[in-house]
């Protein structure tokens, strides 16, 4: 038997003493539990689970133990380190969740603040409504025809069966280009576009023509020298007043909901028979008529709103375009777009339409549709 060899025989290591290890663990768990922030936890990890932590240092001492004791000591420190790491990880998850919650609370903003910082644009109500009106017809298979605003007298008057002496041609009504004898004018209606369509396109013809028109008219709350029209023209075989009535009724319903139209006989050179088309009031549906207790400002308690003119295309117009009126017949109609905006959207003053106040153009935004 020999005595212990200091250099060879393992020595008992104080650091690996179970009680000591347990003490390390307790200290580590206490530090973890008392960490209030991720940063504190990081510090606790460094101190209690880092490379220089007591447990890590103790672990290094395992080699100094006698082989028989190493296993037990290794298991002990391993378990201890495992417990500490687990606690750190759990606490880390906990703190991360807490801190996220806090961060989300801190990042709250007032979601009612104004956000459209760039200017808000808008189409003019005339443009918006004119597009809508055209779309009703495009959906039916019609096409949209266009033509020049500065027009030849022949297109604006002659071809439309307006007599050479007709007062509409006079300087009081029509804006003529100087010199007037050159026969150029600002179109007084979009009907010249119909003549162009009849001359340029094949039959049968189903077109609408929207656009600007000009009259030597007053400039006041209810008159503008420049306004907008939408006209429709159909030339086909077997077209009658019934087709015109049905089309106008459909158009009215597409624009105003459940309303009817009526036709009152009238006179225009380019149509025969001619009529004015009235729209059943889409607000009161006639209930305001003779009912002073519930007046209607849209139809002025008349039950009907004058909307435009219409009729069967005068065969003289077809003839001027080289179309055989014995084979083809047609109808045409037209209405003022500005006036339609006026009664449809309660616009009080036509001058607002052309004076450029941005509040006017912005007053409908998408609501014109």
């Amino acid at each position, binding site marked *: 038997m020999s005595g212990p060899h200091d250099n060879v025989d393992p020595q008992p290591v104080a650091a690996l003493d179970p009680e000591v290890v347990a003490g390390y663990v307790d200290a580590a768990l206490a530090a973890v539990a008392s960490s209030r922030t991720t940063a504190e936890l990081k510090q606790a990890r460094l101190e209690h689970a880092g490379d220089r932590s007591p447990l890590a240092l103790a672990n290094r001492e395992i080699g100094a133990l006698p082989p028989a004791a190493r296993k037990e000591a290794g298991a002990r420190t391993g378990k201890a380190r495992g417990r500490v790491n687990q606690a750190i990880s759990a606490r880390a998850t906990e703190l991360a969740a807490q801190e996220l919650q806090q961060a989300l609370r801190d990042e709250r903003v007032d979601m009612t603040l104004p956000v459209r910082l760039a200017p808000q644009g808008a189409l003019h109500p005339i443009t918006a409504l004119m597009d809508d009106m055209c779309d009703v017809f495009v959906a039916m298979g019609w096409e949209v025809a266009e033509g020049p605003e500065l027009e030849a007298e022949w297109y604006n008057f002659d071809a439309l069966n307006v007599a050479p002496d007709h007062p509409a041609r006079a300087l009081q009504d029509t804006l003529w280009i100087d010199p007037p004898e050159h026969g150029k004018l600002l179109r007084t209606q979009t009907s010249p576009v119909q003549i162009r369509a009849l001359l340029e396109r094949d039959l049968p013809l189903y077109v609408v023509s929207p656009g600007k028109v000009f009259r030597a008219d007053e400039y006041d709350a209810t008159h503008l020298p420049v306004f907008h029209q939408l006209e429709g023209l159909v030339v086909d075989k077997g077209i009658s007043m019934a087709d015109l009535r049905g*089309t106008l009724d459909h158009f009215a319903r597409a624009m105003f909901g459940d309303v009817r139209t009526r036709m009152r006989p009238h006179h225009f050179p380019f149509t025969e028979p001619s009529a004015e088309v009235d729209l059943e009031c889409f607000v009161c549906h006639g209930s305001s008529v003779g009912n002073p207790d519930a007046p209607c400002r849209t139809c002025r308690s008349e039950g009907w709103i004058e909307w435009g003119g219409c009729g069967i295309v005068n065969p003289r117009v077809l003839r001027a375009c080289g179309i055989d009126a014995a084979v083809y017949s047609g109808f045409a109609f037209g209405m003022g777009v500005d006036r339609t905006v006026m009664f449809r959207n309660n616009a009080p003053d036509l001058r607002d339409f052309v004076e*450029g106040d*941005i509040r006017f153009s912005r007053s409908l935004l998408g609501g014109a549709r």
Partner: protein
Amino acid sequence: MKAPVSWLRELVSLPVTDAEMADSFTRAGLTVERVETTGPDVTGPLVIGRVLSLVEEPQKNGKTIRYCRVDVGGHNDEATDEYPASRGIVCGALNFDEGDLVVVALPGAVLPGDFAIAARKTYGHISDGMICAEDEIGLGDDHDGILVIDPTTGATPGDDALDALWSSDTVFDMEVTTDLGYCLSLRGLAREAAIAARVPFSDPYDRSMPSPTSGGYPVELESDRCTSFVALTIEGFDPDAPTPSWMSQRLLASGVRSISLPVDVTNYVMLESGQPLHAYDAAQLQGPIRVRLASAGEQLRTLDGTVRTCTADDLLITDDSGAIGLAGVMGGEDTEVTSSTTAIVLEAAHFDAASVSRTFRRHGLPSEASKRFERTVDPRVPYAAARRAAELLIAHGGGELRAEETVVGSVPERHRINLRTGLVAAILGAPIEASDTVRILEASGCQVTAMGDSLTVCAPSWRPDLHDPYDVVEEVGRKYGYDRIGLRIPVPPVGGGLTRTQRGRRAVMSAVAAAGFTEVLSLPFIAETELDKLHLTADDPRRSLVRLANPLSDTHPYLRTSLLPGLFAAVAKNTSRSLGDLALFEHGTVFHATDGGAVPHPDVTDRPSDEDLAGIEAALPAQPETLAALVCGDWVAAGWHGDAVEADWTHVVAFAETAASAVGLQLARRNTEVMPWHPGRCAELSVNGQVLGFAGELHPEVIREFGLPERTCAVEFTLGALLAAAPGGGSIRALSSFPLAKEDVALIVDEAVAAADVEAALREGAGELLEEISLFDVYRGDQVGKGKKSLAFALRFRADRTLKDAEAATARQAAVAVAADRYGAVQRA
């Protein structure tokens, strides 16, 4: 046309209410726009009273008042010890006596002008009402004193005074379309009402023109614009004879002022028959009446006291003294009837509609006569009308009609129209039988002959508007009732939808609106001074102005060649209303004069020749479709997010780029100098080498002269050309998923070199591998030297494989080489 209902009912017995009559007029195309009630605007008790007693009481102020006791029948106070049953009224007028009948407004009455009557204490009495003068109750203009009523009228105290003095009537104010001239007469309207009510109508003016005779006042027709002339002479007429009140009231209800019996009778008969008449003072006529064209410069003083200078196109009534009337428009002053006229020559003539129309418009002289002649008057009615007028004159003014009459000229043949019987039902789209057609047309006064499947329609003399077969269709339709026609929607052939241009225009408009710009519209008229304020040079194409012959305002006689002045006006409107942060745009036509000459006027009986159509197009000026925008003030206002962003040139350039990209185009830009823009801050905008317009900050002088906010920026370009250049189709490349190689390069160039040019050079040099290039920094300073700038670009390369570092570096070098070669660009260390 104002039609008193009592007059209509006198002409035809109608088994319908006024409201039904109005409704049937409107349905027949004679729109009743207003229904008025004639008579003074008085409410409350206005009664006849008899003055029982009056006491004159001089006042301290020098006036004398009368305390009257007035018997007002059922309205009397009970009798007292002092007074019999009556009311006490204080009156300041002195022109009546005890026993006179007067008009009394009792407390509660409201007289014209919202003058409410109440009992009040005055001059020591209770005045329990008011004794009225004529003007106070709106019966006339007379305020000379109290209205004393003729006892022979049978009025008794307590009667409603309005009923006793005034026959109230309902009046239809109707819109008569230009084709229905015969409805500018009561007999025409009565016929229409009779047709609608399906009752017979007997026309009081159904009387043939007699054969020509020249026994009366001599008349010579020297122009075919007058086709007939009737002259009747009345002698021994009492010039003091008053107009009967029923006649003056009807005239007033019809909107015609009562003047004198002869004038009132001619107006009355005109309203009733539709035939304008004229009464001459026979004593003032010199020699025969001649109807002839004026010689240019010939003068005439018309009834309104104005001297008219005629052209050779004016038709005149003349005698040996010269012109005595503008035919069909207005008579002359020298021969008008006066308060001493005892012999009258009545004229009833038929004048050419177009001639009268031109004359009254030329002289700015619309009259009841010209309004009727312009719409064509029944050529058969002059004699009947003249006879009716003569009878009325004699009945109310005495005298006698000379047996010798003058009737010259002739009545034209009635017009015949042939049409297929089936046309009516085919065009109206309603099952209207031939028998219905015949019945309706005969009620309208036509003679109809059916032969096989065709009808021959002979229109009555008062319906010159019935000329073509379709006129007959309309006549049947309006009487049948448009609301009885069914509804059908015709089916068009397959349509092409909106055209590419139309879709492109909508895309552009929506895109710029979404980008923050507000659309405005302005009137397209400009002044030459506006072009001066834009500082346009003399040869600027925007000075090729189209001038209006009859501008609405003499200051703005031209059509716009630029949308900018209109936008400037909109800025002024907005800033005057404290709206200073603006981003506006306008879409519209501008007009550039071309030397187009006169427009051809091809015949309208068939399709014009292609040459004529081309000639029309060639004669019209260029009218490019244009888009313009303007910004001023703040683009983003200062707010919770930070400082304001001032509107500047980038916003108007972005406007143009937004518009272009909406139709798939990219604009090229280069610096240029064009007015009205700032010479250093103006971009020329082009596409495929075609210049479309300009954008940038406005010239400070222009800003000052138009009073615009400082640093206002604007853009204007030809939208039509942009839409025409829009590409179709396009292709989508396979998307490479290989890694991106990024290379940055900073190049030093002269200040004058455009960034866009350097970028284009880099793009060209970099070749196929370049996926994207963007300018991320512009630096000026000591490190690059004076007059130079450094442009830093980020280049992104990608290929269908992973690029080697060297490949990207090579491409970068190639890019720099082109920039160096072209612009002397030097890579910054």
